C-alpha cells in the first residue's frame, strides 16, 4: 500500500514535468502558427525543418549550428584546461590550493546573470568586441569548474606509485601521461565534458550578455528574441521534439550498455 502511494506520487510529478514537452510534441504535427491551435494532422513542419525551407526563418538552423559548435568547442577546451588544472591542484597544498579552490567555486555559486554581467563589463573594459570568441570564452568560464570537480576525485582514488613506477621503468613523462595518467582520469574527463556540453547548450543568460551586437544567435537567444517579438517560429516545435527524442534514445542506449557491463562484471 505504501509502495502504491509512493509510486503514485512519483508518477504524478513526472506527468506534470512532462506535460509541456508532450504538448510541444503533439502540436509539432499541425501547421498552425501558434502553439495550442490544432489545424489537422500534418508533417509539413518537419519537412520545412529538415529541408531548411522556412519562410524567412532560416536563421533558426544557423542558431542550431552555432549552439552545437559553441558547446563543442567550449566543452573541449574546458575539459583540457580543467584536467590540466586538476592535476596541478591535486599536487598543491595550503594557501594556494585554498585560493584556487575558492576561485573555482565562484562561477558555480554565481547565478548566470552575475557571470554574464561581470564578463560583459570585462569585455567592455578591455575594449574587446563581442561575438563568437567572447561567448566561447564565457562558456569555458562557467564549464571548467565542473570539469575540475569531476577529475579531482579520480586523482584522489589513483595510486600515485603507478605513475612513478612508469617513470622508473623508463617511460618519458609524456608517455607516462598518455599511457598511465590519462586512462585513469578518463571517466572524470568524460563526465566533465558531457556536463560542460549540456550546460553550454542550455545556457541563455551568459550568452545573452556576451554575444555583442553582431547578430549572433544560439538556440536560447533565438527563442527569447522570437518570443518577445510575439509568435514563435512554428518549426521550433518539431525541432524540440526531435532533440528530446535524440536525448531519450542516447540515454536508453547508455543505460542498457551500463547494465550489460554491470552484468558482465558480475559474471566474472
Amino acid at each position, binding site marked *: 500500500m505504501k509502495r502504491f502511494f*509512493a509510486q503514485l*506520487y512519483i508518477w504524478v510529478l513526472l506527468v*506534470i*514535468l512532462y506535460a*509541456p514537452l508532450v504538448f510541444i510534441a503533439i502540436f509539432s504535427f499541425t501547421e498552425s502558427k501558434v502553439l*495550442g491551435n490544432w489545424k489537422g494532422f500534418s508533417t509539413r513542419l518537419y519537412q520545412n525543418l529538415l529541408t531548411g525551407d522556412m519562410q524567412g526563418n532560416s536563421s533558426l538552423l544557423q542558431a542550431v549550428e552555432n549552439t552545437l559548435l559553441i558547446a563543442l568547442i567550449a566543452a573541449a577546451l574546458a575539459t583540457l584546461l580543467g584536467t*590540466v588544472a586538476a592535476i596541478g591542484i591535486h599536487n598543491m597544498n595550503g594557501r594556494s590550493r585554498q585560493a584556487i579552490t575558492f576561485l573555482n567555486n565562484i562561477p558555480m555559486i554565481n547565478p548566470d546573470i552575475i557571470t554574464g554581467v561581470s564578463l560583459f563589463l570585462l569585455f567592455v573594459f578591455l575594449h574587446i568586441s563581442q561575438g563568437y570568441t567572447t561567448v566561447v*570564452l564565457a562558456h569555458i568560464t562557467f564549464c571548467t569548474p565542473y570539469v575540475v570537480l569531476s577529475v579531482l576525485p579520480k586523482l584522489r582514488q589513483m595510486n600515485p606509485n603507478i605513475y612513478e613506477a612508469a617513470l622508473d621503468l623508463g617511460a618519458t613523462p609524456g608517455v607516462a601521461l598518455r599511457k598511465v595518467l590519462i586512462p585513469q582520469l578518463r571517466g572524470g574527463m568524460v563526465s566533465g565534458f558531457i556536463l560542460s556540453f549540456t550546460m553550454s547548450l542550455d545556457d541563455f543568460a551568459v550568452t545573452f550578455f556576451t554575444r555583442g551586437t553582431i547578430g549572433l544567435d544560439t538556440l536560447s537567444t533565438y527563442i527569447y528574441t522570437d*518570443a518577445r517579438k510575439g509568435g514563435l517560429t512554428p518549426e521550433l516545435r518539431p525541432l524540440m521534439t526531435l532533440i528530446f527524442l535524440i536525448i531519450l534514445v542516447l540515454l536508453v542506449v547508455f543505460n542498457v550498455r551500463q547494465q550489460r557491463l554491470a552484468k558482465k562484471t558480475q559474471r566474472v
Partner: protein
Amino acid sequence: MKRSSWAIPYALFLVVFVLLPLILVVVYAFQDSMGRFTLGNITKFFTDRDTLSTFAVSLEVALENTLLCILLGYPAAWILANRKLNRSAVTIVLFILPMWVNALMRTLATAELFNMLGVTLGKGTLLFGMVYDYLPFMIYPIYNILDKMDKSYAEAAADLGARPGTVFWKVTVPLSMPGVASGVLMVFMPTVSTFAISEFLTNNKIKLFGTIIQENINSSMWNYGAALALVMLVIIGLSSLLSGGEKEEMQGGLI
C-alpha cells in the same frame, strides 16, 4: 618539474575571467557614467521605490519557490532513494531528462498550456513555472545524499526502539541536510535573478530583479546595472558564508 605548476594556466584564467570581472562590477557600481567616483548608484537603489519593491517581490518569490521545491522534492528524493519503494534506477533519470530540452522553450510551452486551459498568467503561474524549472535541482542533491547514506544509522535507531517517524525526523532528515543546503543554493539565488522565465510566465506583469538588471545593462546604464549586480553579489556572499558548505559534493555527473 613540479606538477603543482600545472595549475598555473587555470589560475591565470580564473584571475582574468572570474576575479577581474567581479572587481569590475564593484568598480563600475561606484562610478558615474563619466568614470568619476560616486555613491549615487547605491543610494539610488535604496531610495528607488520601484526597484526596492521588485527586489522584495523577487526575494518573496524565491523564498516561496525554494520552500515548495523542498516540500515537493524531499519526499520524491526520499522515495527514489528507497530500495523498497523504488526498484528501478531509471526513474531518477526521468526527472533529469527534461532539463536537456531548452529551458526557455519548456517555459513558453508551459505558458501556452496555461493559456489554453484558460488560466490567467500571474503570480500563481509564475510560481508553478519556477517550481517546474527548479524542482530537479532540489531533488538531485537530496537524492544523492540519501542514496549514499549509511543505512546502519537508521537501522540502529530502529533496533534501539525508535518508531519509524522518529527514525525519519531524528536520523534521516538531519543526515540529509547538506543535500538540502546545496539544493537551496541551486534554487534560491537563480530564482531571484531569472529574467526570461518571469517575463514569459506573467506576460511581463511581474518583474523580477534579474529583469531590472538586464534592462539597465541593455539600455547602456552599466553603472546602475553593476550596482544592482553588486547587491546580489553581497547576498550570495552572505548566504554562502552562512551555509558554509564546499560544493565538492556536486561532483559525479548528472547522467
